[in-house]
């Protein structure tokens, strides 16, 4: 699976008069890792939801390698090659870890046996192989996050959307996840867009960062550039987590 180019152009969404996202445009070239940051309530997850097809943008378009995906249903967006995780993880609780990821793998591998094999090898990569027969609801939070990533990867996406996948992880676990994602991106060229509050991960992974606040893009640049950007500092004053 190599990556695709993700492009947002003038995307906006309002909920009953409340403007959640307004005129946001940025692009993530194929094979790169970008980050989307901003204070809580800035509209980051709404942007993800518009890419993933949960919401239809009121304005603007989302394209994947030039093909418009905004307005498609979430499963059709997955068909187009977008995988996503949820900010509050949503495992299939009553199913085993292996079954969870298998369901993802079935997307590209209709044969159940083959899907299970693909799922098992993904679990091994994410260090969940020995827990593969445990019920998802019995996993710890860090394991559930890994499960969420594995399940999304099993669909063999060209773009992976990760929503605060580091939240709640200890520093060593963060490093492991960062290493995994960096390796994944290097090996396969998968395009990754992360929503993150954990700056350590953003600095380590992202080639470019998009900053949103109150639904609007206020800055875009390399991690070094935006960490010195005045508007960004203003917005984060008193809110930044030192990690």
């Amino acid at each position: 699976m190599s990556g695709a180019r993700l492009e947002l152009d003038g995307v906006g969404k309002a909920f009953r008069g409340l403007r959640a996202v307004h005129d946001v445009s940025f692009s993530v070239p194929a094979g790169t890792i970008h980050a989307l940051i901003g204070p809580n309530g800035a509209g980051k997850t709404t942007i993800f939801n518009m890419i993933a097809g949960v919401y239809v943008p009121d304005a603007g378009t989302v394209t994947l390698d030039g093909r418009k995906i905004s307005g498609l249903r979430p499963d059709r967006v997955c068909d187009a090659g977008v995988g996503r995780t949820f900010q509050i993880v949503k495992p299939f609780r009553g199913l085993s870890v292996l079954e969870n990821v298998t369901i993802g793998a079935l997307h590209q591998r209709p044969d159940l046996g083959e899907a299970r094999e693909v799922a098992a090898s993904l679990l091994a990569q994410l260090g969940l192989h020995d827990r593969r027969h445990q019920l998802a609801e019995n996993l710890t939070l860090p394991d559930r996050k890994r499960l969420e990533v594995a399940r999304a990867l099993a669909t063999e996406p060209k773009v992976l959307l990760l929503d605060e996948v580091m939240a709640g992880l200890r520093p060593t676990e963060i490093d492991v996840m960062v290493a995994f994602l960096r390796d994944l991106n290097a090996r396969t060229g998968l395009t990754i867009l992360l929503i993150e509050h954990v700056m350590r991960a953003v600095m380590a992974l992202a080639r470019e960062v998009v900053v949103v606040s109150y639904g609007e893009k206020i800055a875009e640049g390399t991690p070094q550039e935006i960490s010195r950007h005045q508007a960004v500092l203003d917005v984060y004053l008193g809110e930044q987590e030192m990690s």
Partner: protein
Amino acid sequence: MKLIRRLTDGVPSRALWALGVLLVALLVAPALLGKYGLSVLILILYFAFVGQAWNIMMGFAGQLSLGHALYAGLGGYVAAGLFFHYGLGPWAGVFVAVAAAAAAGAIVGYLGFRFSLAGVYFALLTIAFSEFTRLAFDHWEWAGGSGGLFLKVDSTVDVWNLRGGPLLFYYLILALAVGAFILCRALLESRLGRYWLAIREDAEAAQAVGVPVLRCKMIAVVISAGLTALAGVWNAFYYNNLFPETAFAMGRSIEITLAPIIGGLGTLFGPMVGAVVLTGLGEVFTDASEYFHVPGMKQIFYGLALLVIVIYRPAGIWPWLAGRLGIGERRP
């Protein structure tokens, strides 16, 4: 054969042996049981079959239907009507019957899902359609109206026209029940079956990994409706009469749901275990209530039994039983 291997994958061999023994026992049962015993066994198999059909929609796809009598009734009436008016044998008529029920299921399913009805609201939609059809058939002369439709009974055994004694219908319902069991196992161990489980667990997460939720739910409804129609056809030709009051009755819809709910929703053996328990209890209560000479006594026992079961074994009897016997039906 790959199919057989897939069906038996993960099943311990002693379970397979037990199933084999059970099948043989069922095949020779008529020789061992008297007329009464056979009729009870027929009842058990009927509820196991129709419960399995309902289970596909509820246990697998998670949609509560309390109007399944619609499909059984349609199936029965279409096949019986074609036989009655045009002499079309039921082995041919069944295709039309199943198609009619599947179409009805598609309509109910589509309306329900398209308009995002869930839970009680969806259940009420299914009831409304079933009742509506009941009232319509009450006034439809081609189907005999409220006076009913009667099939001629003679003493010949004619398999093509499904004329014959209990033996014929026993093996027929046995074949249907076994077939449904195998079908459900095959479905569960397929991509569709896995997608159903995902939808039941978390439909939003399922969509995010590419599961076409609406399409999967529709398929569940249509399969469930079609299978239920088969039960209706069997029923019509076994009892040789049909009345809208009973064929489409809410009581019939409810009785279809009892075996799978009591036995264990979403499991393979649930409907069968439930059918055995319910029919067995029914027989016991009929005998017991004869001591009382009070109308409704049997139903009172029945109601108490249901109460006890739902309070103490809400997940169904089979999951508890399987746990006790040390069999894991790989309840996913």
